[in-house]
């Protein structure tokens, strides 16, 4: 039985009881409990089922290293899977449910897997599910999906808010234990800007639980004193519930602060992601106790010795009435002593070591009447859903049972590993400490900053010193060194306080208990609880040739669960080294990657959700479109009307209506999104000749020319109409969404290649609203507005002119992307809406209607005009599209010219642009491929073309398309077959891509 004791619990507020539920059961805890401590207080030791074998699993640890106690938390918009009970603060109304079991936690069908465990060894998935391939979809995948996975993904939208904080400091201290606080005090008093992040909700780390005295006072009082003093320093920021999640290049750190996890209904952001730039980082991240590998070490009731102590001292919880302590070091004796002082029974301390004399703690334990069994180990733990006893053996032997001791809890300690994760994230190297059998930071090889100097310093237990006085001295030295390197003066009177020194006996590495454990025992000795990896699995991996630690990790999945192997890594590594007969440092560690502990996805998103996910660019007429039935289409960051729906008509009907109306009467298109770049200077013409495939320097003032732009690799990247304003000024139109990219492209060449050319480029896209006035009645509407002469004689096709229309100052381009009589008219952006309104009034009796982007697409496709992104996809050169007329033969050079001379680019078998017309008038599926005879070397049907644009043309009353076809222009009239994904085969004839008004008479009136 685990239960709440009548006394104790330094973190509890017993005046404030808290109600919560676990799997629907009503339970009670206190303010200050974690979910784990409250579950234990209610004798809920069994908290989940293991990943592979569905073995019953209990709480093992008391911190973020906990592998088993993962729960579903909350409901609906506050549902969260895989929450760790050990780091979840208890609050009134908390709802938790266990995971990975069916139909119930107590009775789980999947547990049958444990009887199959011989058949689910390391690499099981790789071996079993490889062949036959066909079985994947219907047999293997459903099985894996059913049995794998921990929590369920949330379905409802998260109702909470999240935010990002940006901060800068001289020293960021990760960890608010005695080392972190003491380093903070040293740095703070030296005048540095300090931020301290502590992952838990209390200061002091392990020290208040483990005890000791500093400067003559109990260590918890010493901690309180440091916090009080730090709070008076204005240059020090203290954050609790804030985990240092990751250390990145040049002193960038992510902190994960949990603000409302203990009070979900209080207003304000739930989590806050700190994005900190620190000149220096001190990792005072402490150490984590390691489990011991003995048979049955995963049975609920087997816990880390320090966790047993934590629950006792912090939460007044006894995890069992009779606890056997098993250890290879002195530290675990603290647990036995604490339990005894609390009036609980400790039948034995099973110590694997054989020591010449008793240490201080061993003497204390014996004085309390605890039986200490040196040189012994646990052969096997008895019990199913709960420990009932242990079988004792000689550590040196193979597991012959010498004695059975009944107990309901086992407190184990395999030694301590410094938390080196944050030190290692950005490249800090590790060294193997033989005495303490752990990896600790190699301070001579720290992560390096922009200046080439180390920017992370470990302090306290994180650097591999565990005794209280060593920890404090180390933290002072770390802070002192950092302050000096940053140029701060450490006050002379600052020094490390005096801590009482305890003489501990050395630990002894124990990687398997007993050291000669039989296969039968090894198959029940768990290394990774969360991923169900046993000693036998790692040995098998080594046997099968997975000698690299990174390979063995992936093969066995050791350390790949959500706890990232915080408990299992070193034991797994040692087991692998043992199996390979190598020493641990030569096997090496796997890579430590951020985050240290999972952080919420929502905290990463921060405020960037919904309407503020990204900025939206709106044209001056945006609101008008919105109130006139616009269905929006995102184009880059812009929103453009796709079509304007009238009454109850469908989107499709609206598009058809817009096309017909524009062809027969008059349409208005908001073309403001088109990019507009002014290119000006004595060398502007020469520069544009390099930018475009055709000649722009010869363009006459007052004229427009359609231009193509290629990358240096020869591929088409943009197109648009260029107008020449005066002797040294051009305006280049780009595609919607292309303005910034093409502006950048021009700047790159001007700044980095032809920097002696005198050219200035300005992006004026948003300075103008632009309206395309299109259709047979376009001129009449402009004449109605009155002002400048827009006749064919005064303003011919491909001319532009400045003037006035209806009182608006305008610049009119006579260009057409529709094949109709068309004027694209630019006005100052601020006049955009008024001008649009004036056009709607002037066009009222002429049948004016606005049209959207889909209508624009059909109009241009009927004319065989290409669209960047449809006919081009980054692999297309202008020559593929029959645009030879827009490629200058006279120019010596332009971007892409050399590339287009390469043999592959001049290959006559490159697919070429043609029109496609279905034999039955239906619409070809977009992207469909035309099949050819025969198969390729992969047994796939050969292809001879593909559809790039496809629409129903209301003008022609049938489906029209453009596509790229092998030798297409030479195969006019031939019929191709396009199998659709709908199972149908489409037949289409190769035709001229200009379907409408091939002579271009309508636009030139």
């Amino acid at each position, binding site marked *: 039985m685990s239960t709440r004791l009548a006394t104790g619990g330094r973190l509890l507020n017993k005046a404030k009881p808290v109600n919560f539920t676990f799997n629907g059961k009503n339970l009670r805890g206190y303010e200050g409990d974690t979910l784990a401590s409250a579950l234990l207080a209610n004798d809920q030791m069994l908290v989940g089922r293991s990943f592979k074998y569905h073995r019953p699993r209990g709480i093992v640890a008391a911190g973020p290293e906990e592998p088993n106690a993962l729960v579903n938390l909350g409901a609906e918009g506050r549902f969260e899977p895989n929450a760790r009970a050990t780091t979840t603060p208890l609050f009134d109304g908390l709802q938790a449910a266990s995971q990975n079991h069916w139909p119930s936690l107590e009775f789980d069908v999947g547990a049958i897997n444990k009887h199959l465990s011989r058949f689910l060894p390391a690499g099981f998935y790789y071996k079993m599910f490889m062949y036959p391939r066909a079985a994947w979809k219907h047999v293997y995948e459903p099985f894996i999906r059913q049995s794998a996975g921990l929590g369920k993904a949330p379905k409802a939208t998260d109702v909470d808010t999240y935010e990002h904080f940006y901060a800068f400091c001289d020293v960021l201290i990760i960890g608010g234990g005695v080392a972190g606080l003491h380093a903070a005090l040293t740095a703070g008093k030296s005048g540095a800007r300090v931020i301290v992040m502590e992952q838990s909700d209390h200061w002091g780390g392990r020290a208040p639980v483990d005890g000791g005295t500093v400067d003559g006072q109990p260590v918890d009082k010493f901690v309180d004193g440091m916090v009080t003093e730090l709070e008076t320093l204005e240059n020090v920021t203290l954050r609790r519930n804030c985990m240092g999640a990751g250390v*990145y*290049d*040049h*002193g*960038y750190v992510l902190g994960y602060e949990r603000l409302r996890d203990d009070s979900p209904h209080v207003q304000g952001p739930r989590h806050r992601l700190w994005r900190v*730039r620190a000149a220096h980082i001190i990792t005072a991240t402490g150490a984590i106790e390691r489990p011991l590998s003995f048979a049955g070490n995963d049975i609920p009731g087997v816990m880390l010795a320090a966790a047993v102590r934590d629950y006792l001292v912090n939460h007044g919880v006894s995890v069992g009435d009779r606890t056997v302590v098993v250890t290879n070091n002195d530290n675990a004796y603290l647990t036995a002593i604490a339990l005894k002082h609390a009036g609980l029974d400790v039948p034995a301390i099973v110590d694997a070591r054989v020591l010449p004399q008793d240490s201080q703690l061993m003497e204390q334990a014996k004085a309390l009447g605890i039986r200490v069994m040196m040189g012994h180990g646990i052969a096997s733990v008895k019990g199913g859903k709960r420990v009932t006893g242990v079988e004792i053996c000689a550590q040196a032997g193979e597991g012959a049972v010498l004695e059975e001791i009944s107990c309901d809890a086992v407190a184990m300690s395999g030694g301590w590993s410094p938390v080196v994760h944050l030190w290692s994230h950005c490249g800090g190297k590790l060294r193997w400490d033989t005495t303490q059998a752990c990896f600790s930071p190699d301070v001579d090889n720290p992560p*390096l*900053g*922009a*200046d*080439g100097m180390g920017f992370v310093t470990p302090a306290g237990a994180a650097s591999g010193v565990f005794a209280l006085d060593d920890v404090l001295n180390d933290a002072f030295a770390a802070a002192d060194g950092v302050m000096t390197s940053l140029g701060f003066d450490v006050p002379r009177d600052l020094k490390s306080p005096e801590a009482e020194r305890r003489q501990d006996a050395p630990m002894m590495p124990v990687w398997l208990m007993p050291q000669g454990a039989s296969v039968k025992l090894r198959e029940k000795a768990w290394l990774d609880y969360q991923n169900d990896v046993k000693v036998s699995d790692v040995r098998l991996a080594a046997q099968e040739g997975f000698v690299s630690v990174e390979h063995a990790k992936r093969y066995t999945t050791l350390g790949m669960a959500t706890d990232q192997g915080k408990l299992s890594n070193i034991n797994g590594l040692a087991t692998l080294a043992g199996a390979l007969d190598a020493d641990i440092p030569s096997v090496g560690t796997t890579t430590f990657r951020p985050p240290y502990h999972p952080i919420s996805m929502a905290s990463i998103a921060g405020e960037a959700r919904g309407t503020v996910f990204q900025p939206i660019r709106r044209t001056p007429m945006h609101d008008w479109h919105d109130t006139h039935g616009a269905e929006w289409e995102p184009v880059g960051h812009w929103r453009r009307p796709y079509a304007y729906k009238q009454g109850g008509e469908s989107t499709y009907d609206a598009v058809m209506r817009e096309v017909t109306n524009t062809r027969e009467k008059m349409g208005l298109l908001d073309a403001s999104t088109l990019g507009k770049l002014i290119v000006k200077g004595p060398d502007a013409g020469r520069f544009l000749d390099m930018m475009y495939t055709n000649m722009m320097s010869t363009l006459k003032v007052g004229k427009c020319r359609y231009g193509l732009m290629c990358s*240096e*690799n020869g591929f088409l990247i943009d197109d648009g109409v260029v107008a020449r304003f005066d002797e040294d000024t051009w305006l280049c139109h780009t595609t919607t969404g292309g303005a910034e990219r093409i502006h*950048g492209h021009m*700047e*790159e060449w001007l*700044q*980095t*290649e032809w*920097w002696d050319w005198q050219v200035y480029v300005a992006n004026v896209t948003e300075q103008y609203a632009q309206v395309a006035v299109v259709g047979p009645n376009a001129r009449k509407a402009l004449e109605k507005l009155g002002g400048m002469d827009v006749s064919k004689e005064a303003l011919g096709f491909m001319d532009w002119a400045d003037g006035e229309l209806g009182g608006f100052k305008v610049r009119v381009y006579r260009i057409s992307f529709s094949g109709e009589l068309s004027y694209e008219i630019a006005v100052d952006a601020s006049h955009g809406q008024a001008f649009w309104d004036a056009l709607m009034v002037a066009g009222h009796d002429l049948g004016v209607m606005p049209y959207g982007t889909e209508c624009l697409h059909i109009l241009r496709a009927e004319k065989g005009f290409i669209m960047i992104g449809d006919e081009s996809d980054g692999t297309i050169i202008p020559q593929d599209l029959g645009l030879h007329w827009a490629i200058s033969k006279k120019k*010596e*050079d332009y971007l892409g*010219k*050399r*590339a287009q*001379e*390469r043999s592959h680019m001049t290959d006559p078998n490159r697919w070429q642009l043609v029109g496609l017309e279905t034999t039955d008038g239906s619409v070809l599926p977009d992207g469909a491929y035309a099949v050819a005879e025969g198969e390729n070397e992969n047994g796939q049907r050969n292809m001879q073309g593909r559809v790039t644009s496809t629409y129903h043309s209301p003008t022609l009353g049938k489906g029209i398309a453009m596509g790229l076809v092998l030798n297409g222009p030479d195969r006019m009239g031939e019929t191709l077959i396009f199998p659709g994904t709908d199972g149908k085969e489409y037949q289409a004839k190769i035709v001229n891509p200009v379907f409408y008004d091939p002579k271009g008479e309508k636009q030139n009136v």
Partner: protein
Amino acid sequence: MLVLTCHACGVTAEETEFHAGGEAHLKRFGPGSSDEDFEEYLFMRANPKGVHFERWRHANGCGKWFHVARDTMTLEVFGSYSAQAFAPPEELLSRIEDRRPGWRGQD
């Protein structure tokens, strides 16, 4: 995430303010060049483990391009210099020499 200093405007900022532009000091080969020269220019890039000269643009700032000398292994930044240069300034080269003795001989 690196911290870089824009040579054009002098601002020191987060990497997110900049846009990386690859290897510096490429010589352009246009029409008339051999396939080998063109391939070298367009596709072949040094990928040193160590000192590297590269192009960056202050994309979310002044918009200007500049050059950076950086160690690709340790991420140490040796300095920024003008984009309008055919080679790194001598003063920068000697600073790199101080930090990486014998580096210049390794080319």
